[in-house]
């Protein structure tokens, strides 16, 4: 049977799911709200742990997805379940009938302004991890002015009741170390500090990255959460944290502060998600049926999930989930 499958989201998860479903003889249709495929990965410069260019991965994925029906600059305006599956009305007023829906809507980056004490949007030289990636890609950011002292703050908007996000965002630790090394490459004379609570180097090659960060790049890791950022007379940043290993509060003047913003559920899909009847878990991400054997399933028949819409994930995790969702959907269509 060849069926239409509606894939909402054209990032890594959506593209990979479409690729595999096409290979399985189905008709995937990608609905992408922006004007390009690739999602957040396309905004990244290089990927951990091996500094692999993100562009290469995205280009490969774009090549794989060739032939798939992609609706760019389009959103799902309405979706109804019927006896044949689903009927979706798109923002351009076209309708699509589909047998199954795959939610691959990904994440939003935590809005760093919500953590006012870090001074994002207040002080000029406080930037986010995403903005730093853009700097690496384009070499342009007027806020980055040959900094001599650079700080990275982990867990911005993660593991923090005070912003209502209690979960670990998984990828920021590794990203911070990767970006710290890259900063050392760009500004070899700069001193680079990272402020962490726990360094979660959970994947293959990630611990090696940590080792290189210390050995080859001389990045200094301070264990303590930055709690206040202010500006001195010269417009430099003064940060306060506790050096918990030394057991004393610490004050430091920096030229640039990079906030490792967490992943949050992409809320622009909330209305459609509600229509489909997919609930959120306590972290605000989409609820999956089972942690082990139902990670692509939701409580609703025919509605599947993949990627960071269910939890923060690394790119390899996301791709693996996208592949597995293709199999799940294929089995569902063929009643297996």
């Amino acid at each position, binding site marked *: 049977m060849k069926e239409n499958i509606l894939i909402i989201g054209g990032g890594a998860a959506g593209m990979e799911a479409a690729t595999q479903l096409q290979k399985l003889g189905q008709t995937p249709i990608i609905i992408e709200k922006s004007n390009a495929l690739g999602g957040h990965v396309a905004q990244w410069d290089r990927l951990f742990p091996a500094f692999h260019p993100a562009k290469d991965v995205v280009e490969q994925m774009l090549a794989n997805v060739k032939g798939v029906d992609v609706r760019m600059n389009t959103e799902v305006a309405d979706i109804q379940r019927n006896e044949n599956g689903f009927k979706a009305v798109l923002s351009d007023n076209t309708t699509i009938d589909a047998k199954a829906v795959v939610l691959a809507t990904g994440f939003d980056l935590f809005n760093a302004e919500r953590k006012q*004490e870090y001074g994002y949007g207040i002080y000029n030289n406080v930037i986010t991890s995403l903005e730093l990636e853009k700097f690496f890609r384009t070499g342009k950011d007027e806020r980055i002015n040959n900094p001599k002292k650079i700080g990275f703050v982990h*867990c911005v908007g993660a*593991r*923090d*009741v*005070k912003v209502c996000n209690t979960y670990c965002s998984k990828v920021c630790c590794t990203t911070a170390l990767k970006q710290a090394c890259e900063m050392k490459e760009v500004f070899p004379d700069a001193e680079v500090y990272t402020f962490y*609570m*726990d360094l979660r180097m959970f994947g293959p090659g990630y611990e090696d990255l940590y080792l290189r960060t210390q050995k080859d790049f001389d990045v200094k890791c301070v*264990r*303590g*959460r*930055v*709690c*206040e950022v202010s500006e001195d007379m010269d417009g430099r940043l003064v940060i*306060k*944290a*506790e*050096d*918990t290993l030394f*057991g*004393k*509060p*610490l004050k430091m003047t920096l030229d640039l502060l990079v906030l490792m913003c967490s992943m949050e559920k992409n809320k622009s899909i909330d209305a459609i998600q509600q229509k489909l009847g997919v609930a959120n878990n306590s972290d605000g991400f989409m609820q999956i049926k089972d942690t082990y054997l139902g990670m692509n399933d939701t409580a609703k028949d025919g509605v599947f999930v993949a990627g960071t819409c269910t939890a923060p994930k690394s790119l390899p995790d996301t791709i693996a989930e996208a592949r597995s969702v293709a199999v799940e959907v294929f089995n569902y269509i063929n009643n297996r």
Partner: protein
Amino acid sequence: MDFGFCLSPSSHVKMDSVDLTTFNSLKETNPDINTCIACGSCTATCTAGNFTEMSFRRILLMLQRGKEEQAKKMIQKCMLCGKCTLVCPRGINIRKILLDITR
């Protein structure tokens, strides 16, 4: 093996004989006390910590390692301003715990 003498007293924290009475009773009224991730936010933001060795994170550790007297001494520097409670990423009601320790 005990040779009946030693050159200097051991500097180990003797976890086998640590007296956790205070900590355990504190835990009953403040179950949050166990959720500390030792991030040091409380200490970094502490108004009194600017000028003294006041550190809630260490007070908590002191209690867990049986150094109750030391902890109680440190608390005397507290201004009770509550900033620690405001910044704690685990939402621990730090000021209440400080008051409870001294009760």
